[in-house]
């Protein structure tokens, strides 16, 4: 089919011309010599000459401006060079034939759509087939030889934003929707789509089939992401994901470059980016010529990767030469930053930047220069000549927290006193306890409480406060994904981690990769290093509990650690991660990670789009994990945590755990509490426990033998009236009122009264307030 008209004929340079009005879309004809520009007030054809654009034809004819000319999209037929189609904002689909002899080239007008038509698309090989997608939710297929559409496809949902015929499969086309779905259709079966999947949160503005790889579809959405999907398998799989800087309006694969695609944005950002999907953090190349948003991009020739045409709202039409593009990589300093589980911080940067000796102020900083192989974890990557990325050698610093010097057991007492175990709804309890743990500098416990709240709060009722805290939790090191901010071709890039916990998780990843620590670049993709510190995993690794938390404030990173360019600031793990994480307010914590992970074929987590941990998982789902966590805490000696969680969770978890084990925990905790003389807390715990054996601790020796304060004889019957002298025995010796509530009395003379009154009295006198002359003693 594709005649290899080899591209040597195309010459040119970066050039532009002014249009009279903002452009909405552009398209080139097959032989790459002409381009059509369409917009609300413009519809013209320009010739591409060696040294500039030449206006060839103005298709906007007639005196009265018709809305049919107001184009949202335009497409030049790739087989028939005289044929064009436009999508009008009023819902019309118009075809134009340049070979018509008169000035008005309009050939056919289809007004079947009720709303704006967003996209038209000719079949790549079939001359007379045209497809349109509209705001009204319908796609229509037209046969240009007929006056009406031949078939109508209903998306059953919201507006269609883009339709694209597959390059390789004759009958297939893809449609993207405003509600985030992408559907695959068979042109012969208008009754039902073949496949549907949710690609983005929010509208999917565009999609593009890979010109070479059958079944690869790139989609771009308002959520600022470009995703590449593999449709060739049974289950649609997300294979690459690029996080861009603004909503993605168009995406186009670069010809002859398997992994490259160009994007432009709909708002805010005016540049055109060319990405290597395998290196999703920094654009491979950038074109920065436009002064307003770019609305249309197209590669000039389908086999030439060096010419890109673009139209823009700033009323210019550009031809960009690839060699003139700016390469952000050249100006960037590769860096990586990651929080460890206990608040440690690892930071890797280019060696040349790290050369300054560690100053005295850097407490707990360890440095590992690049190329040092003594440490257990490092990466070594084979250079890949086809990737045009610079290679960088980086050095790693780990900022460790100091061991908590004021060890003691203060934290135990404080925690015991401040935890709330009952009296409030579950979510509030968890929240409170998380705060307590945090203020006592125990981030792991704090995070545990937060996780528990998320897991067990009712998803059906995403209350205001839940929302609130979910957002907040973005700040916690709850979900850390560590990724080397790559762009190095990384021959020498080595990353070392010295922390044991990190090693654990790394090893897990490495094993996933079927590789041991001597990882020698697996087809050039293993340069991302993930330390998946998500809390669920905490319990799986046996860690030393004694590694107490860090004070993050101690670590002032060198200023240059955060490159001030905005490209890098938008990286998901850069300092403003909230934006990305909060896109979908309802995601449970564990989902948030899938957004910032980047693809690695062998790493299964990644192909998961948000649905895996839907917020509707029953709480039961988490029980095994929670159980494991409780055991972990108990084993670490932190029986306090285990019991507190047990009480707060109550019935949610109780049945999962062995009764004897529970009893054992309770006993240990109560014992500890009593040693620290925390009688109130210990009593509360006993009261709240559900084990029979524990509860009866409270029932033992509950009798109190007392004497009447008047006649000094033992009181035999119940109540406070002495049956001998018929006086009320519980009169306060100071104020002479009957005491209700706390009553304190001297065991020597049986006189006593209100606690505060007696205390007050004893400050002044050692004698009994009743005047009996006894030198009272209170314990």
């Amino acid at each position, binding site marked *: 089919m594709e005649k290899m008209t080899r591209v040597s004929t195309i010459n040119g340079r970066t050039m532009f011309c002014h249009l009279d009005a903002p452009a909405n879309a552009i398209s080139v004809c097959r032989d790459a010599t002409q381009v059509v520009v369409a917009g609300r007030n413009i519809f013209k054809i320009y010739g591409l000459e060696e040294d500039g654009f030449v206006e060839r034809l103005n298709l906007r004819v007639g005196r009265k401006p018709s809305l049919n000319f107001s184009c949202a999209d335009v497409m030049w037929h790739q087989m028939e060079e005289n044929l064009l189609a436009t999508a009008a904002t*009023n819902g019309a689909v118009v075809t134009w034939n340049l070979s018509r002899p008169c000035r008005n080239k309009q050939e056919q007008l289809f007004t079947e759509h009720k709303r704006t038509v967003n996209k038209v698309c000719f079949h790549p090989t079939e001359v007379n087939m045209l497809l349109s997608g509209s705001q009204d939710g319908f796609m229509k297929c037209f046969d240009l030889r007929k006056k009406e559409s031949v078939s109508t496809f209903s998306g059953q949902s919201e507006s269609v934003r883009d339709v694209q015929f597959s390059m390789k499969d004759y009958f297939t086309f893809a449609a993207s929707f405003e509600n985030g779905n992408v559907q695959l259709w068979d042109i012969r079966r208008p009754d039902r789509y073949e496949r549907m999947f949710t690609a983005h949160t929010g509208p999917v*503005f565009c999609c593009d089939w890979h010109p070479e790889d059958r079944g690869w579809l790139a989609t771009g959405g308002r959520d600022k992401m470009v995703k590449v999907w593999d449709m060739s398998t049974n289950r649609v799989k997300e294979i690459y994901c690029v996080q861009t800087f603004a*909503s993605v309006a168009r995406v186009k694969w670069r010809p002859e470059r398997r992994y490259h695609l160009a994007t432009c944005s709909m708002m805010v950002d005016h540049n055109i980016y060319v990405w290597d999907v395998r290196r999703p953090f920094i654009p491979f190349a950038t074109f920065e010529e436009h002064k*307003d948003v770019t609305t249309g991009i197209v590669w000039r020739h389908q086999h030439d990767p060096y010419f890109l045409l673009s139209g823009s709202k700033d009323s210019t039409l550009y031809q960009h030469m690839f060699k003139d593009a700016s390469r952000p990589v050249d100006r960037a300093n590769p860096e990586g930053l990651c929080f460890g589980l206990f608040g440690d911080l690892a930071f890797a940067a280019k060696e040349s930047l790290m050369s300054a000796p560690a100053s005295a102020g850097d407490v707990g900083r360890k440095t590992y220069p690049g190329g040092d192989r003594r440490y257990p974890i490092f990466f070594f990557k084979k250079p890949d000549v086809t990737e045009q990325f610079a290679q960088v050698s980086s050095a790693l610093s780990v900022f460790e927290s100091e061991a908590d010097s004021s060890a003691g057991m203060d934290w135990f007492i404080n925690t015991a006193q401040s935890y709330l175990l009952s009296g*409030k709804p579950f979510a509030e309890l968890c929240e409170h306890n998380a705060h307590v743990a945090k203020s006592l500098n125990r981030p792991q416990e704090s995070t545990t409480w937060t996780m528990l709240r998320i897991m067990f709060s009712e998803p059906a009722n995403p209350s*205001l406060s839940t929302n609130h805290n979910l957002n907040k939790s973005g700040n916690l090191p709850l979900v850390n994904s560590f990724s080397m901010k790559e762009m190095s071709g990384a021959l020498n890039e080595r990353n070392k981690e010295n922390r044991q916990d990190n090693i654990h998780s790394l090893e897990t990843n490495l094993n996933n990769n079927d590789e041991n620590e001597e990882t020698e670049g697996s087809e050039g993709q293993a340069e991302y290093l993930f330390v998946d510190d998500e809390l669920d995993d905490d319990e799986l690794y046996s860690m030393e509990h004694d590694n107490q938390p860090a004070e993050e404030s101690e670590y002032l990173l060198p200023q240059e650690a955060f490159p001030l360019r905005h490209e890098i600031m938008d990286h998901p793990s850069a300092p403003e991660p909230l*934006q990305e994480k909060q896109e979908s*307010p309802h995601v449970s914590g564990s989902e948030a990670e899938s957004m910032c992970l980047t693809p690695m074929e062998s790493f299964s987590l990644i192909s998961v789009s948000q649905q895996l941990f839907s917020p509707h998982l029953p709480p039961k789902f988490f029980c095994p994990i929670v159980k494991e966590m409780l055991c972990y805490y108990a084993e670490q000696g932190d029986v306090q945590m285990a019991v507190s969680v047990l009480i707060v969770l109550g019935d949610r978890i109780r049945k999962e755990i062995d009764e004897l084990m529970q009893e054992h925990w309770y006993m240990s905790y109560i014992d500890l509490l009593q040693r620290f003389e925390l009688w109130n807390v210990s009593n509360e715990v006993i009261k709240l426990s559900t084990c029979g054996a524990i509860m009866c601790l409270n029932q033992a020796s509950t009798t109190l033998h007392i004497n009447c304060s008047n006649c000094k004889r033992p009181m035999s019957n119940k109540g406070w009236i002495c049956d001998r002298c018929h006086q009320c025995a519980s009169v306060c010796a100071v104020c002479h009122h009957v005491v209700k509530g706390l009553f304190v009395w001297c065991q020597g003379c049986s006189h006593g009264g209100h606690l505060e009154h007696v205390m007050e009295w004893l400050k002044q006198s050692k004698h009994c307030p009743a005047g009996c002359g006894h030198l009272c003693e209170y314990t």
Partner: protein
Amino acid sequence: MDVRDAAGRWDALSSRDASSRNAAMELIQQEVIKKIESIGPMPDPQCSSPPPTMDDSLSSDLNALLAHVLMLSKRCPYEDVREKCICLLQRVQDVGVRIPRPVGNGPSRFIPEKEVHRVSTPLLSQILQVSKLDERTQSIFEDAFAVLGRLDNISLVMGFHPQYLESFLRTQHYLLQMDGPLSLHCRHYIGIMAAARHQCTYLVNLHVNDFLQVGGDPKWLNGLEEAPRKLQALGELNKILAHRPWLLTKEHIERLLKAEEHSWSLAELIHAVVLLTHYHSLASFTFGCGITPDIHTDGGHTFRPPSLSGYCVCDIANGNGAQEDMFGNQQVSESSGEVEVLMERMKQLQECRDEEEASQEEMATRFEREKTECMLVVTSEDEECVPSRDVSRHFEDPSYGYKDFSRRGEHVPTLRVQDYSWEDHGFSLVNRLYSDFGQLLDEKFQIAFNLTYNTMATHQGVDTSMLRRAIWNYIHCMFGIRYDDYDYGEINQLLDRSFKVYIKTMVCSPEKITKRMYESFWRQFRHSEKVHVNLLLMEARMQAELLYALRAITRYMT
């Protein structure tokens, strides 16, 4: 009155845990008794006259307390608290202290609290009283109560549409309480400014309280000139946005952003713009539904014994004559069959759409005609309504009002939705500068636009999308926003004149809404449906204002 202290006291009542509510209730009871005791044993109001100054402050304290208890007895979503409050009030009355009673009946003047009981359709079984609610509404109310410690009348009226209410409350909560570029008291102050622009006493009072509670400087409340320069600068934006948003240019934005030490940051500005538009449209809703003052605020309750004469205080405060009530029912009889006619028209439009294809010019003129016609829809009372002094101090230039979009002479270009729409453009801008908020707004707009129960008055299974779209587009048309793919002839078919009057009044000068207007459109429709219409109007208005503001900001940025 020490607002903060008082607030702390009520907090525990909003807990979901019954026992802690109980404890809090206990405390309040003690507090009340203590107050009563401290005033002195003077059950007989005639004879005793203790030192007057002392007594005044004490008794006003007590009264505020009692008013709050009264509010709880009516509005608290928890049954136990309501009962206890009623008991408490009863006890207090038995002691001989005057207790307050609510003014007016129910959260809205237009919607009778009682009448709604009688209707038996499932939709309307959610009534305007907190006592009988379905589960969903109940839980939303509980959430709202937990966050705010009160259930305002706006939420109660919106309770007709729980799905929307939920989204509304979430958005408002995020806007006022969550992380954002502006400090808390600034947010409330901007809310006050915006509501004052429409002389909405209800919202102003609500936020004056909140403003003080979060530690705002009471001096600011004396008038805009006492507020910091930075906020003063916002006055201009407030004015234009409220009345003629299409006049907003990037120069306005530039003036705000480049004012040396008083300049705004982009993120702050977006936050402020959202706040302004939110409260402008909420003011529309407040007037449109005739929201009465909350029971515990001034004007929401009275200590006077009930008497037959006299209008509700709130009616006068809001500038609406209460005498409207008497004329209200006159025209009811003549309008039977209105619904059927409307449905018939909708069906016709649906059917004949394919046959009669209007030409392009025809479509263009239809928009222009609708545009000019909406100008001719004159709001009934055109006399200058002078804003009451205490509200107008929050803004400048009180004479500035809505002016029709298409006046002869000055031609402002139409905004085409296809060139600047919320979904494609506005959303991204908001989300970029005020993280996450775009998502919330987007959800709210969608829910408002798509909300339907497929009913019309007594008819079931009606597709109302056409009607909803006509209303939405009509409002946008009034603001000069055009949809290329919409046939504006439909509006004329579907919206009759009295409805258009109502829409225009509500959107452009909501303070002029009267009960008569509310009653004279769509007479056979249910109140819940009218509230639904109000929601549509409110959201459409908010979106229109936002579009202009965001477009100006975008233009400034490029």
